[in-house]
């Protein structure tokens, strides 16, 4: 057991792997080569179609103890992972690790297969009931939560060797070219799948929309795809993309957005060449609207909008407010439709987006980014992984990548959720270290990290409600009281890996 630099106790090893405690966001240097895989030679020019999922599993050579992956661009509409594990079970294969880019609530169907020993490890974060059961000690399955950039790094460095990637392919031909733009399961960008396509030992494209050769534009090329499997459906299109993403009408959310916009204005970054990232939440979209107005008023020609892309960013691109969009994942139909036709709406891989170990990822070029939080502590550390009961319920996403890359990472959150204080003495779990967070914005005030004194002075000049983060915490505690700490056992059930592979925190079993 060792303490990392944030004072979190990190065991020496977990699930048989030696751990490196987190030290700081910047200094860890890679000493590795890119992972390799066997070069293949395919001499036939015919179809790579192997039949259905079961045939594909057999063809791929999947065996006990191996690791599989899927991508999560179909989000909560995905049925591929559930179908896959059902077939793996039917074939009698056991002890499989899942290293998907994310696991969603819809994948709660995997729970019986975890109990049965079909799935024995999760090399990826989880959203929803699986994490809750693991936290409660009701499900024995070690979890390693990684950020989008951290996952790309782990695959590229060979730290997580994926034996077979089963990649949902919304528009695919028989020789393995595919894209995400068209078809009943269209999801737009295949940014996460790109990494698996390049690094998994075997790649299976799974499609519900086989089109005549060639499937263009080519997103993932025939040269990296071993087999093509055909299925009736990859999932529920209604849950793959939401048809609308809406700005919040909640006055508190709008207030937070307004303060966040003040911070962006005060930063001085809104000028020609401005780059910006925000999520899909109602508050984030409200901030995006303020930013759009600021850019219009100042006649600003921005550089790019990045990350997961919504129709709001598409509108800003089309209005000429940005030169380009870098899209790792499309969040709504408008974004899907745009990426299929607009060359300035660029698909980017998760590695290009956020991998810390390359010659510079897109997050490094961000000026301002809006991030959310489940909890924030007085050192600006942010938790997005565990909820108020201590259960592991959310994946990291790009949170710590974007915070580390952007010049100004702005964390927005209501000061109080239900009866719970969101700014507090210590977060249950550290997802993103405070040294990469610039500003915390709540409806009860704006706290600026001490490393940004000029921004703080400018906000005070603008009469923004700037408060010391400890003062903010005290004001919130005065309303909510101080919550009793959650009690944990000593058993570590999951790791929170920082983007560079060091361990920033662990998830312990909650004492029931």
């Amino acid at each position: 057991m060792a303490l990392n630099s944030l004072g979190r106790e990190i065991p020496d090893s977990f699930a048989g792997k030696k751990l490196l405690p987190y030290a700081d966001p910047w200094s860890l240097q890679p000493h590795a080569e890119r992972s390799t895989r066997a070069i293949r030679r395919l001499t036939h020019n015919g179809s790579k179609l192997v039949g259905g999922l079961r045939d594909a599993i057999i063809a791929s050579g999947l065996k006990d103890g191996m690791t599989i992956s899927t991508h999560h661009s179909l989000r909560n509409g995905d049925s591929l992972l559930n179908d896959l594990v059902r077939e793996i079970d039917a074939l009698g294969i056991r002890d499989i690790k899942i290293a998907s880019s994310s696991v969603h609530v819809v994948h709660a169907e995997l729970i019986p297969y975890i109990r049965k020993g079909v799935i024995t490890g999760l090399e990826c974060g989880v959203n929803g009931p699986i994490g809750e059961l693991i936290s409660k000690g009701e499900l024995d399955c070690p979890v390693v939560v990684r950020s989008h950039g951290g996952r790309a790094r782990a695959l590229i460095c060979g730290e997580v060797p994926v034996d077979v990637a089963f990649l949902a392919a919304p528009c695919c031909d028989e020789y393995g070219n595919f894209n995400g733009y068209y078809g009943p399961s269209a999801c737009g960008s295949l940014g996460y799948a790109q990494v698996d396509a390049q690094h998994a030992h075997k790649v299976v494209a799974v499609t519900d929309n086989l089109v005549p050769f060639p499937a263009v534009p080519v997103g993932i090329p025939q040269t990296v795809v071993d087999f093509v499997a055909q299925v009736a459906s990859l999932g529920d299109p209604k849950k793959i993309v939401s048809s609308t993403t809406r700005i919040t009408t909640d006055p508190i959310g709008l207030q937070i957005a307004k303060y966040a916009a003040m911070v962006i204005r005060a930063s001085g970054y809104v000028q020609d060449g401005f780059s910006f990232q925000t999520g899909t939440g109602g508050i984030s979209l409200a901030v995006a609207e303020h930013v759009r107005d600021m850019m219009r008023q100042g006649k600003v020609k921005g550089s790019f909008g990045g990350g997961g892309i919504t129709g709001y960013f598409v509108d800003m691109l089309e209005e000429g407010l940005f030169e380009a969009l870098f899209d790792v994942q499309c969040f709504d139909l408008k974004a899907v439709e745009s990426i299929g036709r607009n060359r300035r709406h660029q698909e980017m891989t998760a590695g290009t987006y956020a991998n810390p170990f390359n010659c510079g990822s897109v997050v490094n070029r961000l000026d301002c980014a809006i991030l959310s939080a489940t909890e924030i502590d007085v050192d600006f550390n942010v938790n997005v992984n565990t909820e108020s009961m201590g259960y592991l319920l959310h994946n990291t996403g790009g949170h710590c990548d974007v915070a580390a890359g952007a010049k100004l990472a702005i964390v927005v959150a209501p000061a109080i959720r239900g009866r719970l204080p969101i700014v507090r003495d210590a977060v249950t779990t550290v997802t993103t270290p405070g040294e990469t967070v610039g500003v915390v914005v709540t409806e009860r005030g704006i706290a600026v990290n001490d490393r940004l004194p000029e921004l703080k002075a400018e906000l005070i000049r603008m009469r923004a409600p700037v408060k010391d983060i400890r003062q903010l915490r005290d004001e919130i505690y005065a309303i909510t009281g101080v919550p009793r700490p959650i009690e944990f056992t000593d058993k570590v059930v999951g790791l929170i890996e920082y983007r560079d592979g060091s361990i920033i925190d662990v998830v312990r079993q909650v004492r029931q």
Partner: protein
Amino acid sequence: MAAYQLRRSLLYVPGNMPAMLQNIPLFECDAVLIDLEDAVPLNEKDAARVLVRCFLDQYKARNKEILVRINGLDTKWALDDLKTVLPGLPDGIRLPKADSPEIVERLDTLLTEFEEELGLDIGHFRILPSIETALGVINATSTAKASTRLIGLAFGAEDYTATMEIERTKSGEELFNARMRVLWAAKAAGIQAIDTIFADVNDMEALRRETELIKRLGFTGKCMVNPRQCDVIHDVFAPKAAEVEHALQIIDAIKRAREMGTGVISLHGKMIDAPIVIRAARVLRTAQAHGLVDIEISEEDIYGTE
């Protein structure tokens, strides 16, 4: 200073909703009207007033004016409302159905009694009466002078149109006469005139049109039902850049005049004297509240020294 208290935006907050009460310090309006009257169902009247009192007791760092809308003085709840809420020290009472000066006088007397009991200065609690019936409109002139506690007259169009047996429209022609009468009464008494709520919280364009209209007529503030309406109202009431620039020149000119030993001076060929200076000071104080200028206007700037 009281004459310059900004009351551009007065937000109704239901007294029976803890989540909304808790957020009162956060809203950017100039005043809140914590409602014990129409927003509170009959079976929650007692719970609401206790809740409001608890909130007031813990809301120490007051950052806006707090008025409590009690139930009408002719109801069985009004006295209990006052008894429970006043020790929490609101700034004043929003008095519904102020149909006559006698009703205001009655509240004035009650407030005096409470002030004595609580050991407060007489006149501590202010009154903002609602002119919201045909009778109220007719009596507005005398109501406006019924008590020195009055900070203004508030026009309530929803009840007014109900008593008139007419529909309220978005263009509001039907309110014109009543609004003017309330305005005359308020201006004649030297108090503020506050306009009625605009009920459609999703129609910001119509809210803007109505607010522009009532500002032109002479209202200095507007009641509202949703904090989202605040931005539009403040924007309309914000002094325009040219207005601010002119006001700054006036203050500068009058300071120069006083240095020369006179209270009158010419600026761009127009005479600058006391009323013009007072108006300029009001513009600058409003501008300051909007963050448009960074100067403090003192009483000395406006009136000079003796």
